[in-house]
């Protein structure tokens, strides 16, 4: 149904972003929190509008923008993620010398980019969304302007990201030249039609995939991730670990699942991605073993997670992917939130050594962090187990047993480094003084909500799975 209503949620977010930017220029330094409240209000408004559009199938701009249920589900996911990031960031940016109101505005703009990306099946629009997302992300990474590592991460992200965008655009140009279409149904029809011109088409598709592989940090296109994750302000890192990844995978599964179904499950592209998935999981987890900086470790862990998600894409399992992303959002934001909890003014505790004895000194934070780590490692009854379980089962059903074996092996490796933090927290004598800022209610709210999410989804995922079923009907 063609309706202006399809654009309104997006307009709310973009409008709020503009207002935040303008207010930022006029507000006094100590009143910056109002911007956070305003942003949260906009997120709620956008959420209500999106909820109204559920099952509506609204489209606009001649179908360039289509709010199908998959798009709406992911929009909800992003709204929650950005709300969490804003909440955990409010105190953080004032403590860590990054008190710029642009944080909220850029997050909202990045959110609008994510929303554009997931609510279109046309590659030009997807690319537009990707660029809106990327440009905001580059600036977000450099939010701590006086910090060398933050600047480094911004520049690295910018260079690598523009490089990836160039690949993407080049691939799109080739695809458009051969298939005369850039919308996903048109592309799938082209590939279904037969083997003529397909060499060039596959080259184009490959380049597009390389572009996306950069964005979602798949080995061997992951080099930027550790530095960016380490340097960027921690709330922003939390956003990076879920936002761009989820949107990228949503686009990939929209594109590739019909492609596999068109009989390309034995094609070269499939084998290529198969190898990448295996490589990503192994490399991500193996390199993470050697990291002593927790943020870096999480960066490699998120690379490894990209590998698991790639299995879902290879299995064409939309429901599994959405479920996985939902759970990963709670785990990842929870884990980064716990890292933020362990900080005080001008100082963050990110080294492994800092964690020695933390479990006894700050029992609540330690315990919550431990739950997120266990979930990331995939222990039942946390959601992390269920997420992997669903994806692996779907993959086995599709005959990807060797890949699943590799995945299980990789996630066994990962147990070591996740548990290592827990070991440090509970079984080591503190090496150095760790004192943290305790008063941060918004952060504790997020930690609690994430904990709830991880446990709820791990034990009783029925409601969410029901929603996902509705969403996936549109996806495939």
């Amino acid at each position: 149904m063609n309706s202006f209503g399809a654009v309104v949620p997006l307009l709310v977010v973009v409008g709020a972003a503009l207002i935040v930017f303008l207010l930022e220029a006029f507000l006094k330094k100590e009143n910056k929190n109002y911007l956070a409240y305003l942003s949260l209000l906009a997120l709620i408004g956008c959420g209500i509008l999106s909820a109204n559009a559920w099952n509506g199938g609204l489209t606009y701009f001649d179908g360039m923008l289509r709010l199908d249920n998959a798009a709406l589900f992911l929009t909800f996911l992003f709204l929650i993620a950005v709300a969490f990031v804003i909440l955990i960031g409010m105190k953080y940016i004032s403590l860590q010398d990054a008190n710029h109101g642009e944080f909220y505005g850029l997050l909202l703009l990045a959110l609008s980019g994510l929303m554009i990306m997931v609510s279109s099946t046309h590659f030009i629009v997807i690319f537009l969304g990707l660029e809106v997302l990327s440009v905001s992300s580059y600036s977000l990474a450099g939010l701590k302007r006086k910090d060398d590592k933050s600047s480094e991460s911004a520049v690295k992200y910018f260079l690598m990201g523009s490089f990836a965008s160039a690949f993407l655009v080049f691939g799109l140009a080739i695809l458009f030249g051969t298939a005369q279409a850039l919308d996903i149904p048109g592309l799938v029809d082209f590939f279904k039609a037969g083997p003529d011109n397909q060499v060039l088409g596959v080259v184009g598709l490959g380049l597009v995939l390389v572009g996306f592989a950069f964005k979602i940090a798949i080995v061997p296109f992951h080099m930027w991730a550790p530095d960016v994750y380490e340097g960027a302000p921690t709330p922003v890192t939390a956003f990076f670990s879920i936002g761009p990844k989820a949107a990228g995978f949503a686009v990939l599964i929209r594109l590739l699942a019909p492609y596999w179904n068109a009989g390309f499950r034995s094609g070269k592209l499939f084998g290529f991605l198969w190898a990448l998935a295996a490589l990503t999981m192994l490399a991500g987890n193996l390199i993470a073993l050697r990291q002593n900086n927790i943020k870096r470790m999480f960066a490699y862990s998120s690379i490894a997670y990209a590998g698991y998600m790639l299995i879902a894409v290879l299995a064409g399992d939309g429901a599994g992917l959405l479920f996985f992303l939902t759970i990963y959002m709670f785990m990842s934001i929870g884990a980064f939130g716990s890292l933020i909890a362990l900080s005080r003014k001008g100082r963050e505790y990110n080294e492994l050594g800092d964690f020695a004895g933390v479990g006894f000194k700050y029992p609540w934070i330690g315990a919550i962090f431990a739950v997120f780590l266990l979930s990331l490692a995939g222990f039942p009854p946390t959601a992390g187990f269920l997420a992997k379980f669903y994806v692996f089962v779907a993959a086995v059903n599709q005959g990807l047993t060797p890949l699943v074996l590799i995945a299980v092996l990789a996630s066994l490796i990962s147990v070591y480094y996740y548990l290592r933090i827990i070991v440090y927290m509970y079984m080591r004598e503190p090496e150095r003084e760790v004192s943290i800022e305790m008063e941060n209610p918004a952060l504790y709210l997020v930690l609690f909500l994430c904990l709830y999410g991880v446990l709820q989804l791990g034990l009783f995922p029925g409601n969410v799975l029901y929603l996902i079923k509705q969403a996936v009907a549109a996806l495939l």
Partner: protein
Amino acid sequence: MELVFVFLIFGLLGVVLLSMNALLGPKKTNPDKEKPFECGSPYLQNEIKPFPIKFSLVAFVFLLFDIEVVFFFPWALIFKEMRGPALVIMLAYGAVLAAGFIYAWKKGAFEWD
């Protein structure tokens, strides 16, 4: 067609005039003449040292503005034909432009440093 000739002739003109000058002019050089200009005194520094470029932000703001102004042109051409939505859409567009402008202004992009 004439444009191609104009291109060629202008190019040729440049080359001819410059080479004539090189042929006709004297060539009496000495090391001091080949030094960069310094008001008659010995040259004070050998290469250009880094120095602050004032208003470098202006260049970035310019990029945005110039591109947006270019979008206005086709719109202005068909403004009368598409009466209703044209004005509203462009007002929204202009509002974004104005918001960016005010932001840059407030952030001091147009100040001396």
